[in-house]
């Protein structure tokens, strides 16, 4: 069965610094996508970044980048130059035929 594990329930980072959120997943499939979603307090969840399993190059979106290690089934999110607005719950998600979310990491940004 597919599972997504986020081992860091809470993380904190100083403003302007870099933080990495961890995610591992388990699957026997070869074709899938991985996502990081951000859920700010009392606001809707939005997509941060996505990665197709067949692409070796790590995805990047402005200050957000991923480290995708397919063999290790690892998909970490790096946030550079952290801003106060980055404070939120971050969910790692896996999708092939089904859509599985991890339990989330709560990120605090310290001014």
């Amino acid at each position, binding site marked *: 069965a597919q599972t997504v594990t986020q081992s860091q329930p809470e993380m904190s980072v100083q403003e302007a610094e870099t933080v990495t959120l961890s995610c591992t997943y388990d699957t026997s499939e070869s074709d899938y996508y991985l996502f990081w979603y951000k859920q700010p307090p009392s606001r*809707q969840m939005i997509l941060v970044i996505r990665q197709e399993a067949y692409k070796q190059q790590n995805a990047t979106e402005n200050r957000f980048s991923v480290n995708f290690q397919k063999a290790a089934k690892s998909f970490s999110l790096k946030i550079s130059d952290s801003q106060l607005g980055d404070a939120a719950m971050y969910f790692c998600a896996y999708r092939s035929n089904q859509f*599985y979310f991890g339990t989330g990491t709560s990120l605090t940004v310290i001014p």
Partner: protein
Amino acid sequence: EAEVAQSPRYKITEKSQAVAFWCDPISGHATLYWYRQILGQGPELLVQFQDESVVDDSQLPKDRFSAERLKGVDSTLKIQPAELGDSAMYLCASSLGRQVGIIQYFGAGTRLSVL
């Protein structure tokens, strides 16, 4: 910017009562999803529609939950009777299609408290 609309934002009900949630997806989005998010956990997919048809309801507790999307636009999720364990955030999302890598757009959710 177009958004997924959900109502109500908050709902308090008593055990054994019926409750319903409404979702209006982004215009033109053929695929609609309902998720349940229990406090401290990630969202769990309950049901997925493609237009008016259900394509996945494998995780929907069908003895008490039902969902419909009669005209392939807005959707209603119903719980009858509600149980204490149903207290959660119910999220609706939509996307243009069903492709694996497609972006889903989420609504703000309905927070249900069952007393």
